[in-house]
C-alpha cells in the first residue's frame, strides 16, 4: 500500500507537488465506493473537534510561544524581532543557569525515588491478600488532592516555628534543635523533592500494579521450580516484563516533573536565594511578575529541547514495542 498523503509535509512542498497530492486525494475520493466515502466523511466529522482543540489549545500557544521568545515583547506591546537575544541573555544569567541545574536535580532525584517507592508499593499491593480496595483507594489520595491544597499543608508542616514534623521528632527525642526544612539550599531542595515524591508515587504504584497484574503467574511458578529466589524472580522475571510499562510511566513523570511549577511556587517561591527555582517558576517570574513576555517565553521554551528528546524517545520506544509484537 502506498504511503498515505497525510504523512507528507504539505507546507514544505512546492505548489505543483501540493496540487498533485490534492489531485491524487480527490481522485481516490471519486473512485471510492459510497460506503467508503461515508466512512471518510464520518472520520472527518469525528476528527474535527479534536483537531480544532489541538490547534487552538496546543499548536497555537506553542507557535505563539516560539514567536514571543524571539521578540522583546512586554505586556501591552508586541515588541520587535530580536532573534536569539533573549536566549543569549538567559545563557548569561546566573539565576537561569541555577534554575536549569535545579530542574535537572529535582527531576532526577524525584523521578528515581518515585520509581523505587512506586515499585515497592506496587509489589506489596500485588501480593496483598486482604484490604486491597481500601489500601489502593487511600494510596491514591495524595495524587487526587489538588496540588495547591496539599502543598499548602506541607508548607505548614515545614514551618520552622510550627512544624508538626519538628514537634513530633522533638517529642520523640530524635532532635534537640528544630529543623529548618525550607531554610537552607540543600534542605529546601530536599524538601520540595520529598513533596513531589509523596504526590507522585501513587501514579507510579497504580500503573506498575496494573502492569504486574498482567504477568502470568505461571512464569513465577516456573522460575521458582528452577530454584530462583525472590530477588532473582524480581530481577529476571518481573523487571524485564514490566519494562515497557515502567518506561512509559517514567517518561510521563519526567515530563511532568521537569515542567513542575505549583509545588515550588507555593513552598518556596524559588528561594532561599534561588536554590529551588525551576525553569517554570523562573519563567513565570520573568514573564508575568516583571511583564517581560519575550524573555519569559524564552525561559519557558528552554525546557523544550530536553522535553522534545524525551518525547522522541518515548515514541521510538512505543513504536519499537508495537513493531516487536507485530512481528512476533
Amino acid at each position, binding site marked *: 500500500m502506498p504511503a498515505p498523503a497525510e504523512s507528507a509535509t504539505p507546507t514544505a512542498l512546492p505548489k505543483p507537488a501540493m496540487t498533485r497530492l490534492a489531485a491524487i486525494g480527490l481522485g481516490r475520493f471519486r473512485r471510492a465506493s459510497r460506503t467508503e466515502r461515508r466512512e471518510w466523511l464520518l472520520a472527518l466529522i469525528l476528527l474535527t473537534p479534536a483537531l480544532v482543540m489541538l490547534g487552538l489549545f496546543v499548536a497555537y500557544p506553542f507557535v505563539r510561544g516560539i514567536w514571543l521568545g524571539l521578540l522583546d515583547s*512586554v*505586556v*501591552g*506591546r508586541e515588541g520587535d524581532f530580536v532573534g536569539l537575544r533573549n536566549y543569549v*541573555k538567559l545563557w*548569561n*544569567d*546566573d*539565576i537561569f543557569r541555577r534554575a536549569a541545574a535545579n530542574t535537572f536535580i529535582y527531576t532526577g532525584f524525584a523521578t528515581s525515588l518515585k520509581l523505587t517507592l512506586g515499585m515497592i508499593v506496587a509489589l506489596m499491593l500485588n501480593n496483598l491478600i486482604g484490604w486491597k480496595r481500601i489500601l489502593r483507594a487511600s494510596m491514591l489520595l495524595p495524587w487526587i488532592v489538588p496540588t495547591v491544597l496539599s502543598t499548602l499543608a506541607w508548607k505548614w508542616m*515545614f*514551618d*520552622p*516555628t*510550627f512544624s508538626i514534623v519538628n514537634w513530633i521528632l522533638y517529642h520523640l527525642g530524635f532532635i534537640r534543635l*528544630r529543623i*529548618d*526544612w*525550607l*531554610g*537552607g*539550599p540543600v534542605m*529546601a531542595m530536599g524538601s520540595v523533592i520529598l513533596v513531589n515524591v509523596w504526590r507522585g508515587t501513587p501514579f507510579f504504584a497504580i500503573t506498575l500494579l496494573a502492569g504486574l497484574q498482567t504477568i502470568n503467574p505461571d512464569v513465577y511458578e516456573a522460575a521458582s521450580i528452577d530454584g530462583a529466589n525472590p530477588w532473582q524472580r524480581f530481577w529476571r522475571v518481573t523487571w524485564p516484563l514490566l519494562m515497557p510499562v515502567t518506561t512509559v510511566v517514567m517518561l510521563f513523570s519526567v515530563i511532568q516533573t521537569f515542567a513542575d511549577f505549583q509545588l515550588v511556587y507555593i513552598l*518556596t*517561591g*524559588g*528561594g*532561599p*536565594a*534561588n536554590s529551588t527555582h525551576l525553569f517554570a517558576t523562573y519563567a513565570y*517570574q*520573568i514573564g*508575568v*511578575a*516583571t*511583564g*517581560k*513576555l519575550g524573555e519569559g517565553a524564552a525561559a519557558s521554551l528552554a525546557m523544550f529541547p530536553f522535553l522534545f528528546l524525551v518525547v522522541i524517545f518515548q515514541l521510538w520506544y512505543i513504536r519499537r514495542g508495537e513493531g516487536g509484537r507485530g512481528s512476533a
Partner: protein
Amino acid sequence: MSRERSKRDGARGIPVPRRAFLKAAAASAGAAALGGIPGILAAGEAPAYPKGTKLHLLTRLNFFPTADKIFLAQAEEFGKQMGVEVQVERIGQNDIVTRTTAAIVAGAGADIIILHNNFPHLVADGLADVSDVAEAIEKEQGGYYDLFRADAYVGSRWLGVPQVALSTAMNYREDWLKEAGVSRFPDTWEELREVGKKLKAMGHPVGQAFGHSENDPNTYSYSLLWSYGGYEVERDGKTVVLDRKGTLEAIKLNNALWKEALDEGGLSWDDSSNNRAFLAGSISITTNGASIYFQARDKFPNIHRVMNHAPHPRGPAGRFYHLPVHSSSVMKHSKNQKLAKEFIRYYMAKEQYGKWFDVMGGYGLMPTKMWHDHPAWTRDPKLTPLRDPIKDARAPGYAGAPSRKASEALTKYIILDMFVKAIQGVTPEEALKWATGELRKIYSA
C-alpha cells in the same frame, strides 16, 4: 475570589436622589474636579450611558472586610445613580499581576484595575491616561506624597490614580523589652542589635522573613540598605552604584543581627510567618504593617495589650521605608473609560474616601497630605507611628525611576538575596559582588 454585583434596586443605606448624589459628589470633589461629576451637574442633566452599561473593577482582597463593605456600598450607590451596573471583583493580590497581564494581552477584561507598586510602569502601554483625575485630586487634597508619584506617574502622565499604601513599622513587645531593661525602642540598627541580643538570650528573638515573598522580606532588605547609604542606581537609572561602603556595612550588620538577635527560621519565612510567630509569642520584634496589631485586638487581647509600634531603626544615612502602594488604573482597552474615570473620581473624593480610610485607620496610608491629621492616626496612640513612614518611603530602583529594570531587580529578589547569601556563608564582599553583577546585567540590557 469573590464576585459581587451592585443591585440597581435596594442599595444599602438611605436612598439618595440622583440630583442630591451629584451635588454631594461635586461638593466633595471640589471645584478642581470640574469636568467630572460637577461638570455633569453644571450641564443640568444626568449623564446618559447606554442601557446595560457595565463597569468592572478588579481589586485585591482587603485585610479589612469592613472597608470592603463600605467600598461596595459606594460602588452600588454610584451604579444606581449613574444608571449603570458596577461589578467589583476581588482576588488575591498575587493574582492581580497575572490577571492584568492576561487582560492587556487579550485586550479584554476589567475596566479599572487597582495595580500595586510600580506596575503602572510595567504595563504602561495597556493603560489610559488618568492625569485629569489624578491632578484634580492632588490639587484638592494637598498634594501627593513622593512615593505615589514615583509609582503611578509614568513619563509625563499619570497612569494610575494613587489610592492607598500599606504602612509598616517595627512591631514589638513592650513587656519583654522592659524585662530586658530597655526603656524605649531602639533608635538605630546597632541599638536593635544590642537589644535583640538580650531578647534572644531570654528566648524571645527578633523575627524577620528572608524567603521569596513579596512584601516583608523586600520591605526589610531595601529599608536596611537605604538606611546605610546603599542604593541600586544613580538618578539616570543606568549607572549601578550598589557596590559602595554603605551596602557592605548593611550586609555586615545584617549578618550580626542574624547570628545574635534573629530567629533562625527566617530564611524560609514568607509574609505571613512573622504574624503567626509574633501572635504565638515566639518572637519579640518584627517588621510589619498593622495587621498583627489588629489580629491581636480581635483574637489575642493579652498580646494586644503589651505590644506597640515604633519607626524603623535609623542607619548612618537615615530612616527609610519600602511600602506597597496601590493605584487605580483605567485600562486602555476599556470601552467605558469616561465612566471609569468618573467612578475613580467618585470614590477618591473626600467624602467617600474619608469613610473608607477611617475604618482602615493605621493600616492604610493616604496618598495625599490632607489626611495626615485625620483622627484615625491619633484615636489609638499605638497606631500613630504608622503614619509617618510615607514621608521617608522610597521605591525600589532608587535613585532612578521605579522602571521595569527596577522591577526586574525586585522580582528577582537581588537585594534580598544579597543579604541571604551572606547569611548562608558567602562573604559580604562576594555577596555584594554577586548582587552588583546581577544589577549590571539588568540595567545594561
